[in-house]
């Protein structure tokens, strides 16, 4: 291709600059990942305890609440969690792809709630109904945000604007692995009842419920929903930083490989140019002698 030494040198400079940027982004993402992961781990005990309380109430049998009611599904609400920024490898693309497949395969109409700019930017130009969007997450995990989103979903479900609320988000598995998952948020119930059955029978523990079983339930349920969203956001952020770190690490490595290859090419071109010049000079001299 380019015998042109100047062109190759220019390309090499550009790649070297790119590498500096990707390496910086990799390190920044690694730091953010550590913090996000810590936040996720720190939030898990509360979530587990809340689920525990709800399961125990469910096990005691005295639970009836509209949020627990499953009814025939004639409309769905899909909450799509993406990042605000790109350069995160397959992170956003995977979510969008699975969301589209879900929309296509659903036998009932589906409305979207877009959390995160990337998902919103994609779907706002498509022929889908977006009920609500949170396009600016600001990369900060906030309880208020989780409550805002949770409240909206509960409202939609109770008003029968939808019969099922499903979350689609990337779950953090490890530093190198994240996985997209669908989770049914509303109606609450299936996973609660399952963990109710799994509860160890602690002697004959009859719990006092204050002020009353139904008051506790009424207080628990909305908190449970907003906490689920909080944890989902925590997972999403953690997975996002891990995805970006992986992507930038790969990009950096590609830059290194390209640098090697192009350096070789450049040196070969440089030597070829020198050889050509020598030949020209020598043959010129020979011609003069003759």
């Amino acid at each position, binding site marked *: 291709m380019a015998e042109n030494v100047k062109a190759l040198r220019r390309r090499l400079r550009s790649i070297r600059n790119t590498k500096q940027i990707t390496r910086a982004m990799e390190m920044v993402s690694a730091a953010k990942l550590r913090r996000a992961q810590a936040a996720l781990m*720190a939030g898990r005990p509360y979530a587990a305890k809340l689920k525990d*309380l709800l399961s*125990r109430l469910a096990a005691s049998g005295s639970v009836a609440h509209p949020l627990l009611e499953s009814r025939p599904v004639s409309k769905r609400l899909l909450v799509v969690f993406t990042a605000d920024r790109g350069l995160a490898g397959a992170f956003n693309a995977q979510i969008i792809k699975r969301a589209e497949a879900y929309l296509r395969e659903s036998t009932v109409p589906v409305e979207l709630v877009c959390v995160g700019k990337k998902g919103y930017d994609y779907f706002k130009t498509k022929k889908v109904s977006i009920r609500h969007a949170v396009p600016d997450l600001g990369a900060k995990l906030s*309880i208020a945000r*989780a409550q805002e989103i949770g409240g909206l979903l509960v409202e939609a479900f109770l008003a029968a604007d939808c019969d099922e609320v499903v979350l689609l988000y990337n779950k953090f598995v490890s530093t190198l692995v994240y996985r997209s998952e669908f989770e049914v948020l509303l109606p609450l119930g299936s996973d609660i009842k399952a963990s109710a059955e799994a509860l160890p029978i602690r002697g004959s523990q009859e719990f*006092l*419920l*204050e002020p009353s079983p139904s*008051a506790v339930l009424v207080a628990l349920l909305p908190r449970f929903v907003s906490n689920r969203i909080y944890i989902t956001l925590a997972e999403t952020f953690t997975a996002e930083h891990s995805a970006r770190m992986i992507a930038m690490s790969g990009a950096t490595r590609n830059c290194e490989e390209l640098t090697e290859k192009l350096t070789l090419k450049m040196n070969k071109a440089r030597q070829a140019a020198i050889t050509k010049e020598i030949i020209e000079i020598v043959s010129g001299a020979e011609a003069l002698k003759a």
Partner: protein
Amino acid sequence: MAQRFRLVVYTQEAEVLNRDVLSVTLPGAEGYFGVLAHHAPLVAALGKGKMVIHETDDSVNEYLVDGGFAEVSQNVLTVLADKLNTAADLES
């Protein structure tokens, strides 16, 4: 010698307290109640008010809570607080 039990306080963000105490007074939804060692199993909804902790060294610590839940089980009091502040936090 008063008996001690474990108090664990969580907010959605993190664990805030995890230590043995002598007694805890909490603002229930319908009034204050106290928890001592070996309290009967309980799940209570919390309202807004002061959480008063008598520590094992006989000191007293107060926190402000605004909503949440308290569970007593197996001699452990677990508080899930919506908001938790020390009086100092609020004065600033």
